[in-house]
């Protein structure tokens, strides 16, 4: 996946790989497999959401009506932009333009941060209005029509929370990439970590693209 102290010869190739391409292919396959597990994990939540949405469509509609679709769409836009800049950074590295790549990585991080800030605004407004999961839901304050509205917010906070955690981890990884790019560790012949984190970031975006309509729009 990355360098190893026992590497023989060629800069970044670990000892047990034949060459850079062998290492790149292996690493990429590992990352894709990891993505499969991520999708399956969120998949479990999506299945649960689908089942309870079909059982309590009105309760879900009530829950969704408290969400601000404008903030959600803004966040969707922000993430799509960040996906683009992430992809661009790899493109630049392949061309050897590591300064441009560095800038693009930072734009990606900033996009992630904007996403999290908007998310924080949304969360705090939910907290203020007592729209919380399970028995924490403030029935008096929210005038909930459905007694189990807390379940919708259970799904909302679980899904967006888990997703938000992934965004934070992704931001951390991209900052690490940016630092390594600045040090000149990546170039046209070695950019596997960037490629890997890039795939992770795209999948995290993709999950949001499913979350947004399910939680905000379908209701």
């Amino acid at each position, binding site marked *: 996946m990355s360098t190893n102290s026992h590497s023989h010869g060629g800069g970044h190739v*670990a000892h047990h790989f034949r060459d850079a391409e062998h290492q790149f*292919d*292996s690493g990429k396959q590992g990352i894709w*497999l990891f993505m499969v597990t991520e999708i*399956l*994990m969120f998949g*479990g939540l999506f299945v649960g959401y689908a089942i309870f949405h079909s*059982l309590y469509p009105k309760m879900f509609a009530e829950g969704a009506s408290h969400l601000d679709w404008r903030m959600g769409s803004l966040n969707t836009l922000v993430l799509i932009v960040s996906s683009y800049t992430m992809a661009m950074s790899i493109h630049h590295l392949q061309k050897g333009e590591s300064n441009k790549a560095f800038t693009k990585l930072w734009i990606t991080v900033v996009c992630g941060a904007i996403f999290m800030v908007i998310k924080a605004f949304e969360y705090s407004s939910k907290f203020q209005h007592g729209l919380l999961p399970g028995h924490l839901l403030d029935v008096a304050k929210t005038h909930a029509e459905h007694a189990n509205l807390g379940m919708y917010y259970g799904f909302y906070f679980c899904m967006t929370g*888990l997703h938000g955690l992934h965004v934070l981890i992704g931001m951390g990884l991209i900052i690490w990439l940016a630092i390594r790019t600045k040090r000149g560790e990546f170039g046209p012949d070695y950019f596997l970590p960037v490629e890997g984190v890039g795939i992770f970031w795209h999948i995290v975006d993709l999950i949001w693209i499913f979350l947004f309509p399910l939680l905000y729009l379908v209701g």
Partner: protein
Amino acid sequence: MASTTHNPDVNYLNEFKGIGSWFTSLDHKRIGLLYMVSIFFFFLLGGIFALLIRLELFSPGAQFLTPDQYNQVMTYHGAIMVFMVIVPGIPAILGNFFLPLQIGAKDVAFPRLNLASWYVFMTGALIAMSTLFLGKVDTGWTFYTPYSIKTGTAATIMVLAAFVMGMSSILTGLNFIVTTHKLRAPGMTMHRIPLFCWALYSTAILQVLATPVLAITLLLIAVERATGVGIFDPALGGDPVLFQHFFWFYSHPAVYIMILPAMGVVSEVIAAFSRKTIFGYTAIAYSSLGIAAVSFFVWGHHMFVSGQSEIAGVVFSFLTMLVGVPTAIKMFNWLATLYKGNISFESPMLFALGFLFLFAIGGVTGIMLAVLATDVHFHDTYFVVAHFHYVMVGGTLMAVMGGIYYWIPKMFGRMYNESLARLTFIFIFIGFNVTFFPQFVLGAMGMPRRYFDYIPAYESLNKISTMGSWLIGIGFFLSLYVIISAIRSGAKASANPWGAKTLEWQTSSPPPHFNFETEPVVTAGPYEYK
């Protein structure tokens, strides 16, 4: 395929020195040994809980535990044995050590991830152990809702521990898949890899595809306990049976995560000790994949009486029958491998033959449980307990023991004491049958599982069962002694004491740090005993 090294005294065990070199080692062989020590420890712990269960059940009524203590002991026995011993067992110990050696690689694809997965595993295991001091868990290892939501004990910590250990399992699986795909030596085609590798490969696919679903399910239980979201709680409009669907969607494939590697070990040992090429290599290899594939669609056979519809029960029963076929194929192929072989009976072979014996019984009773009408009677009785112990202990643990004796010469460069090792087999094999065969009868008589107390009609068989557990206990303690004394003071082993053909025997014992002095080039299949 050189079997000599430049300096035969330098190997992976002594090239780096000091405790620190073990805890930071990226060498798959050393990581395998780290797992071995930790899993042996947890096995000892889980075994002590098992002996406590049997002691309590020696007679009806309370013996020395209260009902609550018994339920905790039963939970810890199950959770430790499943999550910390049998699921990681063969892949993490023997798989880590021998997958790269058998395919002619210098290491697994991601050595750092491999070490990380051990740390993740230990973190999860320690969190799980912490519940012993933080209120204890009494949910059973299955965490069925709504009991697991209502119980006042430390269930939240336990599900989070299982979540963390699941991550470790995913990382190991991912590593093995890429290793098998990408790191095979020149000439080592997929149809030339040993059957143990095929088994690990199929297992790894299951680990990667099934574990995430368990992870999210366990997380939901934690959320449910913390905030009462109500997804699994009928009082809040939730569905407790949904949990069972989610849980068994992982845990049924997990059953094959536990048994497939054992089948791989048995294939290796039987071929080596019969000095004969394995019968039906392709069939055994693909039946592993077949079992893995079908295992995702049979989870509902745990739920015939849960309230799922009749038609669901029928479909799941039918699909379960289909899993029986590849299993039968393997059994007959191993039998055919013995035919016209040149068989010797060192301990690894005894354990492999013991596996065939016990797994045959575990298999046919599995069919009885897959048949709808009989399952209604046997479900959640001691019949089920006996069945899965025949498969998990009679199958997997016999294979673990056989595999460890088989590979001790390679792992440590030393031989174990053969007559003592045979004695451990006799104790474990007889003790096992004395313990668990009466449980089939108890189940048929109607004794439910997870019972702290039972009606007097069940007493004599329970007594026999408890006495059998002492024999197993002696057998495993003796094994521990045999293994430790082999490592400390066994006679020096040659590179290939069994005359086996697979690649790991073609390097020195113990192997050098990078496994092979020169990269092996493979020109034939793994079992060419001509």
